[in-house]
C-alpha cells in the first residue's frame, strides 16, 4: 500500500513539484500509488486542458441553437422539429504515429462513443489527416506506411461499425513527418427529449459498467498524449489500445436500447483515463460522488492491480448510473446484445471518488481536488509566434503556366484523394447526399427533411505565417464550404493541434490562434460547442526539436432543407461562369503561403491571404440564396491553388466539361491564376442575370468570366492566352497521382 513517492515516480507521471504540493495539500496526506496515477491522468494536458483552458474561455459558445456547449462528451445543437445533432472532433495523433492502424481505429471508436453516450446515433464521420511528405528522402517510406495504416484503421472501424465516413481532408508537410495528425469528427442525431448527460445523481443508485472487459492496454495513454515525442515513445506501443468495432456496434445498439427503458440516469464512455475519468467526472458534474469496488470490474487478464484497472484505456466500455431497483431492465438489454454488464459501485452523497478493492480503500479523493484544484497555467506567451519564414519571397517567373497547373493538380496535396475515401464506406445509412470530394459533405436527416452539411478545414501554412489571421481564414473557408453547398453555418467544434506550450513562442501561436478563432466564430455566428486540444506535437531527434505547424482544425456544421445537392463539377456546356466575390487581389507578400509557392517554388514566406470578414459573409449569403433559388448548376469555392485549380477541379467528373475563361486583370499571371484570396466562389449557371442581381443585393462582385465548354480548359487575360489544357488529361493525371506517390 505504501509505495514511496519518489521524484522519479513523479517525473514518470509527469507531475511537477508544485503540482505535487497541491496534491499533498488537497489530500492532507501522501497519495497512494493509485491516487498518484489518478491525479496524473486527470491533470494531464489531455484531460485537464491546463495550458489552454484560460484561453479557450475566450471562444464564443452560445447561440439560441446551442443545447449543450463545451464540457460534455459532445456539443449539441437544436435542428428543429424535436431533433438535435451532437458532434465533436477529437485527435488521436500520438497513438497513430506509434501504431497507425490501431491508433486511428481507436480514434474513430473514441469519438463515436462520445456521440452515442449522449443518446445520439452516429450518422457521419469526417477526418482531417496530416502526414509527412511521401517522397521524403529519409522518412518517405515510413510516411507512406503511416498513411496506409491510418486510412485502413479508419476504414476498418467506421465501415464495420456502420457509420459513413463522408469527407475530410488530407495534407502533407515535412513537419508532420514524425508527428502525423489524425483528427476525427463525428456527428449523431438524437431526439430532443432523449438526450443523455454524463452526470451521476441520486445517492444509492447503482453504478454499472458495460461493454468490453478491462485489460492493461492504454495504461497512461492520456499522459503519453501529453508529452513530446522521442525515440523512447516508440517503445510505448503497448499503451496504444486495440479497437473492436463490432463490440462498439453492439455497445451502441445496447446503449440506445437501454436508454429507452427509462432506467438510466447518466452515462459516460470510458475514453482517455478510462474508469478514473468517468467515475470522477460523473460524480463531479452531478455534485455527488461515486464509490466503486474494483473486484466487480470485468477483467480481461489476471493480476491487475488497482492502479492498472483505474488507468486502463481498454476500448468499448461505458459507465452508467441507473435507477435503483431497475438494474435488471438494464442488464436484460445488455444480455440480449451479448455484452458484459456489472454493478461496480454506487452513487454517494459526498463529492468524493472512493475506490475500493475487495472492500479495502485504495483511493479516496474529493472530486474538486481532481477537477477544481487541477492546475491551470497561464503559460508565458509574450514572444512572437514561432516562425523562421522570411517576409520576402524569391523572384520568380513562370516558364509555362499550363505545366504549373498540371504540377499543382498532381501535387500530393491537391490530387484526388479517391484512393483514400474509396476505402471508406461513405454511403451506409443511406443519408449521404453529397459525399467525399465535395466542398462540404451533406447527410440528410430522414426524420425531419433537414440536411446537415459538414466541413473540416485546417491550413498549417497560413497559421504558421500568421496564427491569428490564418485561423480566421480557416473559419471563413469552412463556412464558405458549407455555404457553397447551400447550408447555413450554425455551430463549430475545434481541434487545436500545436507544439509544446511550455515554449513561449509556441504558446504565442496557441493564444493568437484561439483569439483569431474567437473573433471569426463570433462574426460568422458559429459558436464552438466543444473540441479537443492536442499539444506537445513535437519530435525530438538528437538536439533538434521539430514542432508541427500550428494546426487548428475547424469542424463546422450547417443546416439546409433536404434536396438534390449542387456539386462542384460542371454539368453542362454552354453555361455562364460567374465568379462570385470577384477576382480578388494579391501581392508578393500575400502569395507566400499558397500552394503555388509550395509546390512550384518550394518556398514559404510572407503572410496568408488577406481576409475581409464582412465581405466574406456577404459572399456566403449570396451563394446560399443562389443555391436556394436553384440557379447554380455547380458551385465551387476557390481555396488551395486558386482560380486555375478550382476551374480544373470543376472539370473533374465523367462529364469532362471544361471552360473558356477571359479575365480582365492587372495582376501578373501567376497571381491571377493561382493566388488564394478568400471570399470567391465559381458558379456555373443558366441564369447569370439573376445570379448577378443577388450578388448586387449583397453588395459583392459577380464577375462574368466565361462559359463552360466540352473537353478543354482555356484561360485568357484580356484575350491573351494564359493556359490551355485538355480536361481529360488533367483529369487522368489528377486521379492517378496519389497512387503513384504511394507506389514510388
Amino acid at each position, binding site marked *: 500500500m505504501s509505495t514511496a513517492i519518489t521524484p522519479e515516480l513523479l517525473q514518470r507521471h509527469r507531475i511537477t513539484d508544485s503540482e505535487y504540493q497541491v496534491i499533498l495539500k488537497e489530500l492532507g496526506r501522501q497519495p497512494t500509488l493509485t491516487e498518484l496515477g489518478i491525479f496524473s491522468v486527470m491533470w494531464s494536458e489531455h484531460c485537464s486542458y491546463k495550458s489552454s483552458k484560460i484561453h479557450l474561455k475566450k471562444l464564443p459558445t452560445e447561440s439560441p441553437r446551442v443545447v449543450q456547449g463545451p464540457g460534455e462528451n459532445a456539443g449539441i445543437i437544436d435542428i428543429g422539429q424535436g431533433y438535435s445533432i451532437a458532434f465533436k472532433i477529437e485527435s488521436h495523433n500520438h497513438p497513430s504515429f506509434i501504431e497507425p492502424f490501431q491508433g486511428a481505429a481507436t480514434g474513430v471508436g473514441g469519438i463515436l462513443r462520445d456521440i452515442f453516450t449522449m443518446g445520439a446515433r452516429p450518422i457521419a464521420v469526417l477526418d482531417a489527416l496530416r502526414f509527412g511528405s511521401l517522397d521524403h528522402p529519409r522518412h518517405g517510406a515510413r510516411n507512406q506506411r503511416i498513411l496506409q495504416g491510418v486510412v485502413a484503421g479508419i476504414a476498418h472501424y467506421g465501415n464495420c461499425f456502420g457509420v459513413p465516413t463522408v469527407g475530410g481532408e488530407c495534407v502533407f508537410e515535412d513537419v508532420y513527418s514524425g508527428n502525423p495528425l489524425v483528427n476525427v469528427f463525428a456527428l449523431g442525431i438524437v431526439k430532443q427529449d432523449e438526450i443523455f448527460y454524463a452526470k451521476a445523481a441520486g445517492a444509492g443508485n447503482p453504478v454499472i459498467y458495460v461493454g468490453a472487459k478491462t485489460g492493461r492496454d492504454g495504461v497512461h495513454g492520456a499522459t503519453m498524449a501529453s508529452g513530446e515525442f522521442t525515440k523512447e515513445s516508440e517503445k510505448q506501443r503497448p499503451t496504444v489500445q486495440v479497437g473492436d468495432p463490432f463490440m462498439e456496434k453492439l455497445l451502441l445498439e445496447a446503449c440506445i436500447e437501454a436508454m429507452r427503458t427509462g432506467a438510466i440516469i447518466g452515462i459516460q464512455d470510458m475514453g482517455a483515463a478510462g474508469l478514473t475519468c468517468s467515475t470522477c467526472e460523473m460524480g463531479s458534474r452531478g455534485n455527488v460522488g461515486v464509490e466503486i469496488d474494483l473486484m466487480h470490474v470485468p477483467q480481461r487478464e489476471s493480476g491487475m492491480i488497482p492502479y492498472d484497472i483505474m488507468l486502463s484505456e481498454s476500448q468499448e466500455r461505458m459507465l452508467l448510473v441507473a435507477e435503483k431497483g431497475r438494474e435488471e431492465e438494464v442488464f436484460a438489454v445488455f444480455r440480449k446484445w451479448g455484452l458484459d454488464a456489472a454493478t461496480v459501485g454506487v452513487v454517494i452523497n459526498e463529492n468524493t471518488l472512493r475506490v475500493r478493492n475487495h472492500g479495502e480503500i485504495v483511493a479516496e479523493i474529493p472530486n474538486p481536488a481532481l477537477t477544481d484544484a487541477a492546475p491551470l497555467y497561464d503559460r508565458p506567451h509574450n514572444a512572437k509566434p514561432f516562425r523562421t519564414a522570411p517576409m520576402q519571397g524569391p523572384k520568380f517567373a513562370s516558364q509555362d503556366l499550363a505545366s504549373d497547373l498540371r504540377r499543382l493538380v498532381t501535387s500530393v496535396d491537391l490530387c484526388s484523394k479517391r484512393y483514400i475515401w474509396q476505402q471508406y464506406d461513405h454511403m451506409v445509412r*443511406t443519408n449521404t447526399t453529397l459525399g467525399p470530394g465535395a466542398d462540404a459533405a451533406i447527410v440528410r436527416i430522414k426524420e425531419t427533411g433537414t440536411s446537415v452539411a459538414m466541413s473540416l478545414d485546417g491550413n498549417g501554412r497560413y497559421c504558421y505565417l500568421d496564427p491569428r489571421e490564418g485561423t480566421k481564414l480557416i473559419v471563413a473557408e469552412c463556412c464558405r464550404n458549407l455555404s457553397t453547398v447551400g447550408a447555413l453555418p450554425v455551430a463549430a467544434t475545434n481541434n487545436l493541434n500545436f507544439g509544446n506550450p511550455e515554449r513561449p513562442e509556441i504558446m504565442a501561436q496557441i493564444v493568437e490562434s484561439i483569439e483569431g478563432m474567437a473573433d471569426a466564430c463570433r462574426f460568422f455566428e458559429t459558436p464552438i460547442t466543444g473540441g479537443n486540444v492536442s499539444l506537445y506535437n513535437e519530435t525530438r531527434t538528437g538536439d533538434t526539436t521539430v514542432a508541427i505547424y500550428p494546426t487548428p482544425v475547424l469542424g463546422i456544421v450547417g443546416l439546409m432543407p433536404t434536396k438534390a445537392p449542387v456539386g462542384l463539377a460542371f454539368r453542362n456546356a454552354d453555361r455562364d461562369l460567374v465568379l462570385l466575390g470577384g477576382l480578388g487581389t494579391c501581392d508578393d507578400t500575400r502569395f507566400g503561403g499558397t500552394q503555388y509557392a509550395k509546390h512550384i517554388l518550394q518556398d514559404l514566406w510572407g503572410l496568408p491571404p488577406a481576409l475581409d470578414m464582412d465581405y466574406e459573409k456577404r459572399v456566403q449569403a449570396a451563394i446560399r440564396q443562389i443555391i436556394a433559388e436553384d440557379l447554380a448548376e455547380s458551385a465551387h469555392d476557390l481555396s488551395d491553388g486558386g482560380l486555375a485549380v478550382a476551374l480544373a477541379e470543376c472539370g473533374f467528373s465523367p462529364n469532362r466539361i471544361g471552360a473558356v475563361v477571359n479575365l480582365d486583370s492587372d495582376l501578373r499571371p501567376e497571381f491571377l491564376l493561382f493566388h488564394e484570396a478568400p471570399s470567391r466562389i465559381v458558379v456555373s449557371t443558366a441564369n447569370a442575370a439573376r445570379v448577378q442581381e443577388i450578388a448586387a443585393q449583397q453588395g459583392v462582385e459577380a464577375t462574368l468570366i466565361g462559359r463552360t465548354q466540352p473537353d478543354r480548359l482555356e484561360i485568357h487575360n484580356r484575350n491573351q492566352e494564359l493556359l490551355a489544357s485538355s480536361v481529360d488529361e488533367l483529369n487522368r493525371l489528377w486521379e492517378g497521382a496519389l497512387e503513384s506517390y504511394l507506389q514510388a
Partner: protein
Amino acid sequence: MKFGVVVFPGSNCDHDCWYSVSHDLGQPAEFLWHDSTNLSNVDAIVIPGGFSYGDYLRCGAIAKFSPIMGAIKKFAAAGGLVIGICNGFQILTESGLLPGALVRNQGLRFICAPVDLRLETTNTPFTSQGSKGQILSIPIAHGEGCYVADERTLDELETEDRVVFRYLKNPNGSARDIAGICNAQRNVLGMMPHPDRASSPLMGSTDGLVVLQSMVASLAGATTR
C-alpha cells in the same frame, strides 16, 4: 407484401433495407432478430449488409449457425423469396443456399463506389421487371466481394441462366465478372451491390428499385394466381 429484414449483431444495412422497402418501395417491412426462428409470416426475406458477428472468422461463417438461418433455409426450400445483399450474399454462400464463395477483393482494399451492372436475366423473381442487358448503376461497399467458384459450378451457373448481374468493369476480381447469382430454384438471390443504396433520387440512383419491384410483382402474381 411483408418484407422481413434480418438483424444479426453487426448488421449495419438493416435499417437501410428497411427504409428502402418501407419508404421508397412503399411496402411493409419488419426486423427479424437473429436469435429467433419465427419469421412472423413475412412474404420475403432480406439479409442485409454489415459485419454479422463482427465477421472476424470469415464473412458469414458464424451467421450460418444462427437460429434464424435455420428458419430461412426452410423458408427458401418452400419456395420463399430470399435476397442477400453484400454480407447477406456472403451468408447465403456460407449457408450453402448459393454456390461458391466471396473472398478478399483482388486489390486487397475495401471499395465503396457506384458501379455499373448488366442485368443478365429477367427469368428470376428479382429481375422480372427489368430488361435483359439493362445497365444499372448500384453502389458496392465491400472488402470481400470477389466471387469464386470452381469451373464446373461457374459453367453450370451460366448454362442454367443463374448469373443475374455482371459488373461492366470488374472492381474486385470476381470470376466471370459475377456480381449476383441465384439458386437453381431461382427464389434465392445473392448480390454484392446494394440495391438498398440505389432506391431514391437523393442517393443518386433509383436503379436498385427494379429488384425490389420485381419481388413485389412476383409475390403479387403468386397470390393472385
